[in-house]
């Protein structure tokens, strides 16, 4: 593990950047627990101050310190993204792997449902559900909703991979070892599906945070709870852009871009690493 880390660090610029931004994200999340202000407390500091040592990201027109606000925003958004990604991964892996491996009626039904979800217009439905459930909406429901809407395509990718794995001889060997289905799926096939799971997890994470931002920009989420989207929403509400308070938008946009790009690059680097082909090559399996 340590060796792998050192190797990655030495050779992959993506990995370095990814680790730096991940470290930054973790730093921000930790800092949120030491924040001197409540996340959305107004007029705690002088409004509209540009970035300085006292206020790293400046302060906004609502008298909030943007650095501290961003620590909460990033924490909430990432938490939400992770929650969505994990929930939708559970569905996607389960459906994708079982449908692919079992085939038959289960596969047919699962794929009909899957197709229906793939073609559903996600944004309108999300908007609608947010609009309808707004006073009952919380992070968990929202994550659940996004998970239900966001698993289908990934399940399809996983299924396709499992279908090809099923054709491989070692799957037959596993069957003749007397292994139960569960073990074949999770022990024998999982490592090959991992790169897909990993890549789609990051994509799903970014997608769900992006969706949250979209909804927030339209004012359809709980705008009393700090998140990246909510910070942008309030900046727009106060016309930060044309008021010259650029740092109000720069903070969330900059942090988003930095963390998103970092996580993505990290996933690219790691994905290459966890790819079974790479693993084999590193063990000297194939020239």
């Amino acid at each position, binding site marked *: 593990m340590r060796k792998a880390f050192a190797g990655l660090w030495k050779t992959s610029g993506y990995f370095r950047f990814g680790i730096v931004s991940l470290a930054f994200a973790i730093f921000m999340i930790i800092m949120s627990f030491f924040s001197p202000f409540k996340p959305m407390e107004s007029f705690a500091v002088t409004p509209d101050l540009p970035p300085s040592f006292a206020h790293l990201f400046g302060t906004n027109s609502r008298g909030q310190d943007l650095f501290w606000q961003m620590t909460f925003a990033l924490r909430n958004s990432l938490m939400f993204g992770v929650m969505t990604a994990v929930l939708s991964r559970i569905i996607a892996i389960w459906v994708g792997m079982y449908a692919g491996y079992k085939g038959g009626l289960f596969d047919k039904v699962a794929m*009909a449902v899957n197709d229906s979800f793939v073609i559903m*217009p996600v944004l309108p439905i999300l908007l*609608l559900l947010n609009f309808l459930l707004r006073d009952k909406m919380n992070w968990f429901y929202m994550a659940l909703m996004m998970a239900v809407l966001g698993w289908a395509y990934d399940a399809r990718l996983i299924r396709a991979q499992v279908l090809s794995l099923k054709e491989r001889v070692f799957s037959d060997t596993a069957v003749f070892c007397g292994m139960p289905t569960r073990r074949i799926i999770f022990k024998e096939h999982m490592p090959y599906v991992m790169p897909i799971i990993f890549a789609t997890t990051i994509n799903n994470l970014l997608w769900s945070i992006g969706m949250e931002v*979209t909804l927030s920009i*339209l004012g359809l989420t709980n705008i009393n709870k700090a998140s990246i989207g909510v910070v942008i929403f309030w900046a727009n509400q106060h016309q930060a852009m044309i008021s010259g308070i650029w740092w109000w938008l720069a903070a969330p946009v900059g942090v988003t871009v930095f963390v998103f790009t970092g996580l993505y690059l990290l996933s690219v680097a790691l994905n290459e690493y966890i790819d079974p082909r790479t693993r084999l090559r590193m063990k000297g399996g194939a020239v």
Partner: protein
Amino acid sequence: MSIRDVFSKVFLKYIMQRLGQCVLVIFIGITITFFIPRLAPTNPVEIKINQMMNGPAKIYPEAIAAFREAMNDLYGLKGTIGEQYLSFWKRFFHGDLGPSIFAYPRPVSELIWRSMPWTIGLLLSTSLISWLIGNLLGGLAGYHSDKRWTKWVELAANCVRPIPYYIFAFILLVVFCFLIPIFPTTDAYARGLKEGWNLQFMLSVLYHTFLPALSLVLTGVGAWLLGMRALVSNIISEDYVQYAEVGGVNKKTILGQYIMRNALLPQITGLGMSLGSIFSGALITEFVFGIPGMGTLSYKAILNFDYSLIMGVSIFSIVGVSVSVLVVDLLYPIFDPRVRLN
């Protein structure tokens, strides 16, 4: 492939099967979108009444009951949810999506037809452009993976890829409409121009939609580029590419006909998906740049809780994606001769 082949029984059977699957999926999708809003405790008539009570034109209390009655009737909200569902399909098969609620009495289909050209114009062109540029660059980057510039292109794509498209929209809006105001902020074309297929109008649309298109292309290119690059780097180690290289086949031919041609196959399926999804519009871009497309329409539909319009927009999106996936599936054999046999 002769005509007889095309209409061979098996092919017809395949088409029927694929069509059936498509219809089933559309049916499930539409059913889900029918029930979601109706299971909610809210109802559009009450929202409408409330809007009017809070709005500029106060209605008299005496009129409210009559009002409610009249509107329920007009919007097809009478009867149990089951009856509504049945009557929805009945109307649907007559090609009638009903009147919009918030733009009453304008039919939903008319609203959609009016927004559609904008969305299609913007998204079809940007999807195709970013697909073309992305694949071209991705192909080159994959082929010349040892060159310095490909590393930069790849890095740029990797950095652009995870950034949500509306972030670009915001940045472009600030830079080119406010700091350097060379692009217009409002409207999809110059005021007073009549919509039509003439040069002046087209130029005006082009000019007005340049920034939103750019923001969409920028993000789109990144994703296609990376996909293509990965595909190319796999295909480059295929035997037939290596063989062509050993055989001294012209480099352009190798890149074009051996590498790109094969790498494009999965990308075509991807294009089908992404072309299908354009029917639901690019909400934030439309929102930010004031383009009267499907995204804006669906946002309005939802804010006004306009059942019929929500259904209409969703149906278009669902049918759009399914049909374009179906079309790509059916056309795929043209691109990949192998599928014709297996």
